[in-house]
């Protein structure tokens, strides 16, 4: 059984998320910063009338910040009853991936990625990482205040 997955890019790596977890893909036009929130929270964005927190994927993954480009996208996804936007560098593709094509990530990568990557898959010559959106959103959100 294969499922549709959205492919997106953060830094040099390509990630995937099941398409049914992704509510919308939007062009990114800026976020309103929320002082006092976690440093990787870019702020809040208004998407189709809803106000959502936006996580900067680069900051969340520990990558250096870059200027936003026309390719920058907001990936709006659901985890539990929360809807959160993720700012990614690029998102253009939807691919079909079967459950069997996913393999557990090598232990090194798992440690490095702090559990944010659930699995890896191969699309032809490209390696893609299955993102654990729940972990991206839920871990480390308290800031010790």
């Amino acid at each position: 059984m294969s499922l549709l997955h959205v492919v997106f890019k953060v830094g040099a790596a390509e990630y995937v998320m099941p398409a049914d977890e992704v509510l919308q893909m939007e062009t990114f036009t800026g976020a309103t910063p929320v002082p006092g929130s976690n440093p990787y929270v870019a702020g809040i964005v208004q998407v189709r009338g809803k106000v959502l927190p936006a996580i900067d994927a680069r900051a969340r993954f520990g990558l250096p910040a870059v200027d936003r480009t026309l390719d920058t996208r907001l990936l709006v996804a659901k985890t539990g009853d929360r809807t959160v936007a993720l700012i990614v560098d690029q998102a253009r593709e939807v691919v079909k991936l079967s459950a069997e094509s996913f393999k557990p990530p090598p232990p090194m990568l798992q440690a490095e990625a702090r559990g944010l990557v659930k699995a890896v898959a191969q699309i032809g010559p490209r390696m893609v990482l299955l993102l654990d959106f729940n972990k991206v959103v839920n871990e480390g959100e308290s800031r010790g205040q």
Partner: protein
Amino acid sequence: MSGSKVDLSEFLPPYLAEVEELLVLARKSLLAAEAAAKGGGHNALAVRELFRAVHTIKGLSSMIDLEPIVAISHEMESCLRAADKAGGHLEANAVEPLLAGLRSIDERVNALATSRKVSPAPQGLLDTLRDLDKPRARPGQKSGAVTYALDPEIDAKVTASERTQLLTAMAAGRRAIRLEFSPSPAKANDGLTINSIRDRLRAIGELVKVAPVHAPKTEASPAGLLFLILFITDAPDEVVSKACGCAVIGELGRAVVPAPPRPDALPELPPDAMADDEQSTSEEGRSSAVVRVPSERLDDALERVSAMFVGRSKLHRAAASLTAKGVDTRELNQLLAEHSRHLRDLRSSFLRLRMVPVSQVLQGLPLVMRGLKRTTGKNVELQLETGRAEVDKAVGDRLIPAIVHLARNAVDHAIETPEQRKRLGKPEEGTVRVTGHDRSSTQLELTVSDDGRGIDAVAVAARAGVPVPQTTAALLELLCRPGLSTRTAADTTSGRGMGMDIVKRIVDQLGGELTLTTEPDRGTSFVLRLPLSITIVDALVFEVAGHRYAVPLSSVEELVEVDAAKVVTGPAPRAGGLATGLMERRGFAMPIVGLNAAMGLAQQALGSKALVIRQGDEPVAFAVDRMMGQQEIVVRPLDDLLVKVAGISGAADLGDGRPTLVLDLLALGAAVLQRTQQERRS
């Protein structure tokens, strides 16, 4: 009466509320009566309701001297009284003028509500209404129809019943005139005394008033006295002069009512006029136990409840610190938990008070549709299905223009002409359906759909000069682009003014969602998902370090100018600490802190303005860079843990489609005090 200016401010709010309600009832009854008349029957109950509503409007308006409204409602009442007496038989040709009358009243009520000048009753309308039914003037009938002009001095002598007598007669098209008779021995010899004149005048008309007034002694009036006579007659001036041996000084009525510029061009009903505080449907009867409360009072109460929530968190903190000191606080905590529960219940009760039935929000729609049918010549049936759904009045009020616009678009653009529909094998009568139901305990779903031609994505794209949108979401986005109109020529109803971008903006500002489905030749539906309730506050908007923020106006005690040179800063705080300055305010030192710094952002030079709040007993000033103004905002809570931060109470769309943070300065102030105290201690 024309000279003295009565202070109406006290009576106005209840008057407006009542009249607005009556207008809604009247419109509804009139449409019901019209529907019955079209079917060849009559709806006696509706006519009776309409008659009563108009009668009450007249009565209320005469209490506060609103002559134009009294005049219009009087004519309408006369016509309706006849219809009521005829067992509810309302002539079909009476509907338009009566609707025009209601519109005219509505327009004047709106003018009054917005402190604009109330224009005089349009003479054309009064004449049309009068022609519907010419009631016989009944002296003493409590009414008033037109204004009349009299010197204030003389007017002061006219009693209320005489005034009604005059106005009634004038309304019935008779002449009310003013005469002056100076008695003199010479005239007496000719048999002209005030008593003989009385008799003669009575023979040709109705004598309303005879009053002696002082006059300078002249040859013409050697007694230094003359009699002022107010007289109603159908006879021409010459006949009257001959009868009394004195000249007609002037006519009181008609001429003094200035003709409106275009008596026929009645302005269309402004969409917001459809909003109404309370309902009173004829099904439920007017006696249902309804308490009318100005919504500000509810808001005020709600605000107080919110203040209790602030108190509650203080209590919890105090209890926690007791617990930390080893005090047994189990019972206290239990009580606090109970208290919290009560508070939550109390708040939801208050929120419920503001809910109004969706059917009531949309009750003006049939009238709008009726007008559209007339102007477009299209045959459209409006189906309204709202069940028992309720929505916060604030949401409802803001929503109306969007729904009206969508319904207009449907009739105007979507529904084909009867001929076209026939060719397509569709029923000649098009259908516009507006349905509403609560989707969950927090969301209302409204749908405006039609069975018209559907939206032609290719044509829309061509007009906008962009590639054809591939999804309905993309099509909707394109439709909502500011300035996009799918019609070349602006037409009377929806080609000008508000476009889909405004619909979108309304929905966005309410925190709702707009979606679209459309199918060629089958029709289009717009679905609006909206929060059932919202928090609306008056807010001050300002800028700090290039970012805009808003704060509820109620939390700000004062706005002050900051002279940076006069702000005293104490010993430099440690790195990362908070630089609190002191500035003089009415002889006392007030702490001042840059808002940016208070929010934990980089400290900057203090801005030139500051918002003063009261933290407990102490004022605290937050310096900001620039004030941007004041506006009403819909505050949306920021519930997600990622962005839940003390001092930020929510976000609002100021109209630019981006969220702006709404700050809770009290919470920020508390945080500031806490931090400064910690710094002092360490």
